[in-house]
């Protein structure tokens, strides 16, 4: 039987329209604007000033704090300004703007297409290289990878689980990466395995990507330590805790972290970046972005330099198609709206999705009929209808007692609600409030 997680979850129409489109390198024009905060945690500190010339891969902002990450220039050119600009959601953040001049790379970066198979670094060196390269988790949360791989004292890592589930509808960037850089991903897993000094690594891939599974299985030399686990398509399988449950059958305790069960979970994109950082000395300066949508004539999977204006990507596919209701960065379930198409891409951008009007319409919400569908689909075993009411009334102590901080904001409850109640909207708000209270208590 094909494995999957047991509790909750939904299976929305997959709509992986761009799955057969090969990854194409996108040539960014004019300028890039690179945010100093592209990761979870403290924004990086700029180390360049206006007028400096930078090369591709040069450090432009330094990690400042334990949970922070380095930021590198994705192009070569001149720094025109360091100022607060609006991101795709309209929020103002500090960005380093670079005018593109030529394409001159740092000498230390290996740009040859050869795959380097030999791993000759000690675990400490590997972690240091990942730190220097500013690798962050590309599964969505953009948590600095070096922090994730530095196991806190008292905890022990037993296995690595790589997330190739890509359970969000529409997204195909991870799928394409597995097909086109399969061996590099397996080498990346081997690198992390050595860094964590563990024996076992898994990669979980949903069976709607059989080509990727078969492709990875063909690299027999690497799959000694690696188990490829086919998973039954189900959302949110790519969530850390759901993936652990699906692959190993173990449950992460409530209020706990994956490391409490001994597992470290990374996305395939992250693992690929780790490979590039360690074997090729290449910092995280580009990532795969899917440009997709039902009304879009040309579907694309682009390799995009960080900081490229989204409007350039949108123009390259012929502009915003007619009948578009919403433009979303990320998948339709958890993605964030793009209100400002001039906003630059981030390290963690996985897609630009054009949702049609009928897909994106939320409809009018009516009264809760206590059907408990939301309770049934909640993968964390919470009671979304109750949390909604509590969050609306700002009853933070009750919210905490009902484990709102365990919500992964996957949106299954909202997807399934027949009354179209804004469940996640309010729960996310309540969760943020409760987390703030919990932090201040420490």
């Amino acid at each position: 039987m094909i494995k999957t997680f047991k509790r909750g979850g939904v299976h929305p129409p997959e709509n992986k329209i761009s799955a057969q489109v090969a990854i194409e390198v996108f040539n960014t024009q004019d300028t890039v604007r690179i945010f100093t905060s592209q990761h979870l945690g403290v924004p990086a500190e700029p180390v360049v000033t206006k007028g400096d010339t930078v090369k591709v891969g040069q450090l432009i902002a330094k990690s400042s704090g334990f949970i922070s990450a380095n930021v590198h220039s994705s192009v070569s050119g001149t720094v025109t300004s360091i100022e607060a600009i609006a991101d795709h959601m309209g929020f103002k953040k500090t960005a380093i703007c670079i005018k593109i001049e030529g394409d001159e790379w740092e000498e230390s970066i290996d740009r040859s297409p050869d795959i380097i198979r030999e791993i000759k670094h000690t675990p400490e060196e590997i972690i240091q290289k990942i730190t220097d390269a500013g690798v962050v988790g590309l599964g969505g949360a953009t948590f600095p990878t070096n922090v994730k791989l530095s196991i806190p004292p008292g905890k022990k890592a037993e296995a690595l689980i790589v997330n190739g589930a890509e359970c969000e509808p529409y997204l195909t960037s991870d799928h394409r990466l597995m097909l086109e850089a399969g061996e590099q991903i397996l080498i990346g897993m081997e690198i992390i395995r050595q860094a964590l000094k563990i024996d076992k690594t898994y990669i979980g891939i949903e069976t709607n990507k059989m080509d990727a599974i078969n492709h990875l299985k063909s690299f027999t030399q690497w799959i000694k330590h690696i188990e490829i686990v086919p998973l039954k398509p189900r959302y949110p399988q790519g969530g850390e805790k759901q993936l652990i449950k699906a692959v190993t059958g173990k449950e992460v305790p409530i209020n706990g972290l994956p490391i409490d069960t001994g597992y470290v979970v990374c996305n395939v994109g992250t693992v690929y970046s780790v490979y590039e950082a360690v074997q090729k000395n290449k910092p995280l300066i580009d990532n795969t972005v899917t440009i997709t949508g039902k009304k879009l004539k040309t579907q694309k999977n682009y390799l995009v330099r960080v900081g490229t204006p989204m409007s350039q990507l949108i123009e390259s596919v012929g502009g915003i198609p007619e009948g578009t209701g919403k433009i979303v960065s990320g998948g339709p379930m958890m993605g964030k709206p793009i209100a400002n198409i001039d906003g630059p891409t981030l390290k963690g951008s996985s897609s630009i999705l054009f949702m049609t009007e009928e897909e994106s319409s939320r409809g009018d919400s009516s009264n809760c009929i206590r059907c408990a569908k939301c309770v049934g689909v909640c993968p964390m075993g919470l009671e979304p209808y109750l949390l909604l009411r509590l969050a609306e009334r700002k009853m933070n102590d009750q919210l905490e007692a009902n484990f709102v901080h365990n919500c992964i904001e996957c949106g299954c409850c909202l997807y399934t609600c027949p009354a179209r109640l804004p469940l996640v909207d309010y729960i996310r708000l309540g969760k943020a409030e409760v987390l703030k209270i919990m932090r201040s208590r420490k």
Partner: protein
Amino acid sequence: MDYSIILYTVIALGSVALLLAIILYGVAQKFKVYEDPRIDIVEKILPGANCGGCGFAGCRAFAEAAVKAEDLATIFCPVGGNDCMKNVAEALGKTAAEKEPMVAVIRCSGSPAHRPRTSIYDGAQSCAVMASVYAGDTGCSFGCLGRGDCTLVCDFDAIHMNPETLLPEVIDDKCTACGACVKACPKFIIELRKKGPKNRRIFVSCINKDKGGVARKACKVVCIGCGVCKKACTFDAITIENNLAYIDFNKCKLCRKCVEVCPTNAIHELNFPPKKKVEEIAPAKEPVSNA
């Protein structure tokens, strides 16, 4: 008929009742909590709105604090105002600090006519939710989101959404400056300012910190931080920080000069008579300018 049953019942129940009464009396005496009678007196003086605007959990908590406090300088009931505090001080034999009456002002005037919508928001109708999703449905990332979180928290029915401008409006006479709306606004638009003589006040009705050009593109009535008002002000009441002017209400003498010179009409004057009378008011106020 045998009346003895009734008699026995009365005696039995009566003795049980007496016994329980004695126990209850004993317990009541033993666990008696002495409560300062002044707390009740003060509570009666207070408006009884239980709004929490004073920072205490309701009027009784305020009364307890007032009785305990050595002087009333640090505690103030914004709803009752100076009159109420004077009565409280009299009842307690203490002195209350006098405070200028305050009122909430909305520092945004970006109605749809001035500030075109750039996207349509269809999520939960709450400013807090909207602010957590994105910067707003207009080009201005600072302005009012117009979903009325401030109107929901007002205990005094003093703030309402104007359906035409999609902005909240404060009713001066009802507003008690409890500060509930200030806390509820995720964009920090609402400010408590001095109510001013005859409810007259002047303020910058904008909190946009963008550079002039960017701000102007998003909204027609935006403060562009040009500094003309600062130059016009003879009382040094205006400061400009982060491309945004701010009028210090403690220094402002309500001369209305800044209102005239503002190129974007971002400075608002409220409850002033039509222009002509200005000259009469302004010189009369000038002698106290250095106070």
